[in-house]
């Protein structure tokens, strides 16, 4: 499976999903007006990966900002990861948040309470 790599813009995050390493990263800002359009190829890619996932998948989420329409699309990404986890494959989600950014920490905790995948909250100290 070819990796999916997307450069970040002021409104959309950089994406690096690599099926050979089993490491996926979403980084930057996710505040587009039409989040569905942006996340559609990612979720389609994950639908393929779900067929033959690696034994371990690590997901790093390093978001500075995200809007409410992205929040649902990110949940859709996590639901696919949950499905991989349910099929007895290791999945680990690392949720990074900047020092003192309690809103971002809370957002990670929201997902942690909805999705049954091990979440790690990682504070970035500057």
């Amino acid at each position: 499976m070819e990796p999916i790599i997307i450069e970040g813009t002021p409104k959309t995050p950089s994406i690096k999903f690599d099926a050979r390493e089993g490491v996926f990263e979403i980084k930057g800002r996710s505040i587009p007006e039409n989040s569905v359009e942006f996340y559609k190829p990612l979720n389609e890619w994950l639908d393929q990966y779900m067929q033959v996932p690696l034994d371990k998948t690590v997901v790093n989420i390093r978001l500075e900002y995200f809007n409410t329409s992205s929040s649902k699309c990110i949940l859709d990404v996590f639901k696919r990861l949950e499905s991989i986890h349910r099929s007895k494959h290791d999945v680990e989600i690392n949720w990074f948040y900047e020092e003192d950014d309690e809103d971002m920490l809370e957002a990670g905790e929201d997902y942690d309470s909805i999705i049954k995948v091990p979440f790690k909250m990682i504070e970035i100290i500057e």
Partner: protein
Amino acid sequence: MSFDLENLVSDLDIRGAILYYKGNVESDTITRALDLVERKLLATREAPRLRKKVYNVLVESLQNLYHHSDRVPRGYHAARPDRFGLVVMEKIGSGYRVTTCNFVSGVRVKELEEKLTRINRSTPEEIKELYKDILNHQEITEKGLGGLGLLDIARKTGHRIDFRFKKYDNLNTAFRLTAVVAPL
């Protein structure tokens, strides 16, 4: 004198505002407004936590205008009839106030009023649970998720959302929404 959306913000300090815009709210408009405000906030050396809250509230406020403004009433002067709105962002004391105005179809007023009243009567914990419930159970449309933007604003500010309606004619109502972000 004929009605203008500006009439709804006559009590605000528009001249001293960090951001003032009236016109069509397109994706590029939002990008430019956010860029301008971010540069101004960085220049003030505001605490990162407050800066991020303000930025987030502004994103949701502007995107509310983008997704949920109804067409302007027939006869109202606007370059284009859709996605027309007004935004004012002011520094007030040690916090920030973000106000948006737009037209809504008269038939949406009751629903919007009930939604905002319910949010304002809810505790922070209830708002959090409602947010998670909508996030987990509602389908997203191209306009986003029903009311999640307003809940997010309420969550981020921790204050009640001030709102008011001004009937324009039998079919259209002008709507003003104000959120205050205060330092914690």
